[in-house]
């Protein structure tokens, strides 16, 4: 059984059918890209998986449990993590405390009040910051980081609780080519413990990092397969490349 199974999911906003009978399966440890022209439903699908909104029809199963109507809190506890499209670091907290906040989310009220895990989480916070090249900015306010660094910080935060599945919505948006390359390098090691679903407009980045692609068009799955299969797909060539 796949780690994440999206079955026949539909979602409309008024007269607009944003998702129409979507089927997607994500295997454990795979890097799965969602691509398609603007308005194809990529971000809507990602938000439905994350719990930012509920689908009108269909089911979403994660690790064998039906999470179609689960709250973001319940999805997070099940091992699902999200990086928003618009950077959502907490600008008035230090870089260090942003990551600590993500790491301590499973702690009880009493433990938090008495700061019982602060010392034991310190090495994990610093490891996460070092991995994303932010250790020397640990004490700075997150709002003082560059855009690219804020994107890295948010990925570090999303990965901090060691989720089973990470959802990334346009992680390289606004980054320089060099920052995009580094982002790809930084994400590779997580394959050992975490699957990835990524929405991204940069097709070169997607091809470099992903091993499976689902192409959406007008709220439907246009094609699905390995990167090589999608590159050879006549339907994708015809519909997707003509618009992008």
């Amino acid at each position, binding site marked *: 059984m796949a780690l994440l199974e999206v079955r026949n999911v539909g979602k409309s906003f008024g007269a607009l059918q944003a998702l129409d009978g979507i089927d997607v399966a994500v295997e454990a440890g795979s890097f799965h890209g969602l691509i398609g022209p603007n308005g194809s439903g990529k971000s809507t699908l990602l938000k439905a998986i994350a719990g930012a909104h509920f689908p009108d029809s269909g089911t979403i199963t994660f690790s064998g449990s039906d999470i179609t109507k689960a709250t973001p809190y319940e999805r997070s506890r099940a091992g699902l*993590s999200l990086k928003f499209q618009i950077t959502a670091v907490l600008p008035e907290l230090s870089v260090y405390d942003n990551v600590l906040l993500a790491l301590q989310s499973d702690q009880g009220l009493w433990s938090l*009040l008495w*700061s019982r895990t602060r010392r034991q989480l310190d090495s994990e916070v610093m490891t996460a910051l070092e991995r994303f090249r932010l250790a020397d900015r640990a004490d700075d306010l997150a709002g003082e980081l560059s855009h690219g660094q804020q994107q890295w910080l948010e990925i570090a935060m999303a990965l901090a609780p060691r989720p089973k599945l990470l959802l990334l919505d346009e992680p390289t948006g606004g980054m320089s080519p060099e920052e995009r390359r580094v982002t790809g390098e930084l994400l590779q090691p997580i394959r050992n413990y975490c699957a990835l679903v990524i929405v991204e407009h940069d097709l070169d980045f997607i091809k470099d990092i992903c091993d499976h692609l689902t192409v959406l068009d007008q709220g439907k799955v246009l094609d699905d397969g390995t990167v090589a299969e999608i590159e050879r797909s006549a339907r994708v060539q015809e519909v997707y490349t003509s618009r992008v």
Partner: protein
Amino acid sequence: MTAILSLQTRRSGKALRILPIIEIVTLVVAIAAPFVLSSRIDLVTLATNVLILSMLAISFDLCWGLSGIMSFGQALFFGVAGYVIALVGRDLGFSQIWGTLPLALLSGFVLSALLGAFLLLGRKTPTTIFVALGTLTGSYAAERLVSGWQYVGAGNGLSSIKLLRAGSHEFVEGMAFYFLALAILLLIYIAARILMRSQLGLVLAGMRQNEERLAFFGYRVQLFKALVFSVAGAIAGLAGALYSYHQGFIGPGNMGPGLSTTAVLYCLFGGTGTLIGPILGTIAVEVITYALADIDAIKSIWPVVLGLVLLGVVMFQPKGILGFFVSDRERVGSYGARPRDGA
């Protein structure tokens, strides 16, 4: 000036920290004040009132400055607890400190927990405006209710409230009541500071900035909010009981939007989210009010002058008077012990 005073060093996080200095100076002044003012009982009474109203200001700061809950109804818990202990004194003849002050805490806690459950724990995440209007409405409705309820004195309120007692000792206006209020304020301050600088305080600070992000981390944001709201309500209740005993009076105006809004102003004036800021704001507003009302030339227009001063601070110094002395980095601070700093 801020940059000079803070002398922040980027990496170590170590700096000349201004907040602890302000806290210590404020405490020293608070301890010395009644001795300096001992010849003027009216000023000792004013100082005691400032201490009690500072508790109300802290209760609002926990809601808004720390957790992002815009409560325009803190006076509701203040007033209800004041009425509760007044009625216990009048109808049961009981005013022992070991029973009445915990009762006031409980009254504020239960009432704010009920209102918080209604406003904060619905299916949909409540907006800031919804919570602000909900708390304001609660405060206004309570004021109107007691204004027409004869059992609680209607518009005249309850006066000649039985004195607070500890065994056979009665707390009357003056030194003893002042130091009782100071000791209680100090305990509340220390407890609030521990909360604010703990890992739980980090969660609340995160909530204030982006509660959706916190929910996606796996935090039950609304439950945290309801808990803080209830604790803040308990503190407001304790302040209300002390106010009733100190003034010997509680009336509808002590639970209405007027006092609720004043608590907001204390915090905005002093600097929200800092705990000491709201205390400085309370001192400043109450002392300015007292001084302006005593000047013959502006006796009739002093509320206008005060209003303009407050408006100026809110518009041109949104971080309050504390913002003149404390850097953003120090105001934000850190949470829990800092292992890397050897703390």
